[in-house]
């Protein structure tokens, strides 16, 4: 069914299209764009196969007015039925993320994951959410403070990384130890622990950084001026595009 692409709305996963013949607005995700340029009445168009109605179609009373600027691309809608439905074979593709080390320590009891039925029109979103889940699991393993770092199972690595950071600060001559003046209050600092992951989620590096807690600084005492004018990002982008 030939359609014109009207746009996508923020916060939804749908495309809004207008059917060329019936002048109806269709909200759907089952859209395939046609790369070649074809014009119907001077307007680029989309197509949707007739027998598929996935979502409600909204009747429009008054004649449609839309700006041509909203037409971003051309698409062809494709019926789901005409494709072979991805079934159990593709299910296996998504149950692989368990090879992450130490994410689940109790491996003697294999947990049954609930097999969820995937919505057909959301299948391209599925992989993305899986990725997010996996990164979140790894993220939770990072110690939040020095105590956690030195008691967790990777304490050797963390200790090593801390020593490395400390040594580099020392070689940079970042500070000298002095007695504190009576009227001054020292600012605090903390260690930040990060696991650097490779493309496949494997641990690449244990990274530790010392950060000063800038919010404990007092204006006029610990700092006076802060930022230079760095807001000219647009100019930077202009140069990049050149």
């Amino acid at each position, binding site marked *: 069914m030939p359609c014109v692409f009207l746009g996508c709305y923020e916060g939804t996963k749908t495309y809004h299209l207008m059917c060329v013949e019936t002048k109806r607005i269709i909200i759907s995700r089952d859209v395939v764009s046609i790369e070649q340029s074809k014009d119907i009445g001077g307007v680029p168009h989309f197509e949707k196969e007739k027998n598929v109605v996935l979502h409600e179609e909204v009747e429009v009373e008054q004649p449609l007015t839309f700006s041509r600027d909203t037409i971003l691309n051309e698409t062809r809608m494709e019926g789901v039925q005409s494709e072979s439905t991805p079934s159990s074979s593709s299910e296996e593709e998504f149950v692989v993320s368990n090879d992450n080390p130490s994410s689940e320590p109790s491996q003697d009891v294999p947990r049954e994951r609930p097999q969820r039925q995937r919505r057909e029109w959301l299948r391209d979103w599925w992989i993305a959410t899986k990725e997010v889940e996996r990164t979140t699991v790894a993220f939770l393993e990072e110690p939040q403070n020095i105590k956690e770092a030195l008691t967790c199972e990777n304490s050797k690595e963390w200790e090593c990384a801390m020593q490395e950071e400390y040594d580099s600060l020392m070689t940079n001559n970042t500070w000298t130890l002095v007695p504190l003046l009576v009227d*001054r209050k020292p*600012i605090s600092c903390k260690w930040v622990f990060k696991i650097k992951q490779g493309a496949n989620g494997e641990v690449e590096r244990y990274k530790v950084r010392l950060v000063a807690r800038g919010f404990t600084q007092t204006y006029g005492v610990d700092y006076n001026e802060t930022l*230079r004018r760095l807001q*000219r990002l647009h100019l930077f982008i202009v140069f990049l595009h050149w």
Partner: protein
Amino acid sequence: MTLEDMEIHQMDVKIAFLNGKLEEEIYMEQLQGFMHQGGEHLVCKLHNSLYGLKQSPRAWNQKLDVFLKSIKFMKSEADPSVYVAQVGDVKFFIVVYVDDLILVCND
């Protein structure tokens, strides 16, 4: 770039913020886990910038500014993130965004 037949090159500076020199006197507690034996009452007087300090970005920008001026770059009046230098017919431009630099020259 094609107009004046210029070359473009992009770079970023590693650990930029740790390179800045501090103008203010800042005292910081000793680090957890690296306490000086017998000197627990001492504090760290910072010379170089650290992550998280209010003046870290400025300290870095100052340092870069001084360096670029020392190699005969001039800061643009209109936009302080652009530096220009000219040697004979060859023009150099540097655009700075914190620790990312773009170098452009017509040679």
